[in-house]
């Protein structure tokens, strides 16, 4: 039986780490875009639209990410189309993060005083213009810390996609363990890598929170 050096393990884990980062970035960007669309719909004048989005958000927040992943992966396969693990992981994480980001941002929008809506309405702005020029720029300030914080949740969420065979950091850890029989070292390294990704983001989020609390102006 061949033996593996620590460097062999680290090297292979780092290769898989790329996919964790890629999947996180993709989910964050697409999820953020979709979340923004949901946010607009959630604040629409039309009640039916608001209700649909509310249900969407409640469903995605009220079920485990793992379930959603299975449903996307096996659900689409039911219609006779094979879905790659990569696509299923991307879709599920995007839908999931959109529901959380939309709700986080809705809280930030609600934090803007009603007077801002009224004043902009009195200047004959339409709802989109009110959001775009008056409310969102102010909400953005409040939104950055929790949004960065949620980025950490996405990174950790990608670990779940190992279950459908997507080879990211956790899945690579399992595969390497099966070859090396050194689970403690391998998963110790896996954990360390997640930490190196997430910890700076958490710290940055806390830093932003303090910064915006202190200087609450332009």
């Amino acid at each position, binding site marked *: 039986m061949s033996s593996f050096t620590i460097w062999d393990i680290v090297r292979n884990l780092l290769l898989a780490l790329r996919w964790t980062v890629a999947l996180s970035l993709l989910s964050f960007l697409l999820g953020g875009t979709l979340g923004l669309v949901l946010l607009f719909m959630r604040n629409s*004048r039309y009640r039916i639209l608001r209700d649909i989005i509310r249900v969407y958000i409640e469903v995605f927040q009220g079920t485990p990410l793992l379930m959603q992943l299975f449903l996307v992966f096996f659900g689409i396969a039911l219609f006779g189309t094979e879905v790659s693990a990569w696509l299923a992981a991307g879709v599920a994480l995007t839908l999931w993060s959109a529901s959380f980001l939309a709700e986080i941002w809705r809280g930030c929008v609600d934090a803007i*005083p009603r*007077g*801002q809506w*009224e*004043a*902009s*309405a*009195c*200047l*004959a*702005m*339409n*709802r989109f*213009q009110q959001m775009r*020029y*008056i409310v969102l*720029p*102010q909400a953005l*300030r409040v939104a950055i810390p929790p949004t960065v914080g949620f980025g950490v949740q996405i990174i950790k969420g990608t670990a779940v996609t190992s279950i459908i065979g997507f080879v990211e950091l956790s899945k690579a850890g399992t595969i390497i363990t099966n070859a090396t029989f050194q689970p403690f070292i391998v998963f110790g390294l896996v954990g360390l890598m997640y930490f190196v990704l997430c910890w700076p983001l958490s710290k940055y989020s806390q830093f932003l929170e303090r910064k915006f609390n202190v200087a609450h*102006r*332009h």
Partner: protein
Amino acid sequence: MSLIVIENVKKSYGNNAVLRGIDLEINAGEVIAIIGKSGSGKSTLLRCINGLETIDEGLISVGDVLLGRSERELRELRLRVGMIFQQFNLFPHLSVGRNVMISPIIVKGAKEQQAREIAQQNLTRVGLAEKFDSYPDQLSGGQQQRVAIARALSMQPKALLCDEITSALDPELVNEVLGVVRKLATEGMTLVMVTHEMRFAREVCDRVVFMHQGRVHEIGPPEEFFSKPKTPELQQFLGMVSV
């Protein structure tokens, strides 16, 4: 011909009837003060005129535009009526100049340069031309309220609604705002103001409206309104606020 027509307007919040049938016609260039106890419906009436509150019954029109329910109809109306609030409601993330420029640019499609000129003119009108690049939180309450007036004026409204615009101000700042309003009145702007400044109402307004329990209880030119109030409710109210 009347600029603002209010016909049999009724509004309730649940079982609480706030407006119980208001009829009022306001001519172009007229300055109207609305007074009354809190809860008499005076602010609600003002907010109904530009559609910030919906009405249950009745009609409101400003110029040739009827108050509707759709966003488009509301915006048509709001292009004709500006509003100034007790809490100023300036946009804190925009400079003073941008506060005044933003709506002409995004709503009316004005060019940057043109909007800048309009903003300069209106800030000069309220005596704050030099504050163009300041931010709202660097101004006093009185200055902020004057910027809010300039902002409303930059949309070239036919009438301005003023909702207790001096009530949130320190006493020494009230006069600078009232001075601006007085100037607008002499320039012929149509003004409808809910106010507690009785002396100002007496000096500047063409007619004063006393609201009581959701109705226009008494209305008239300030001289006889204040010196010979007809109804006991108004007599009592004026006795309380002591003019």
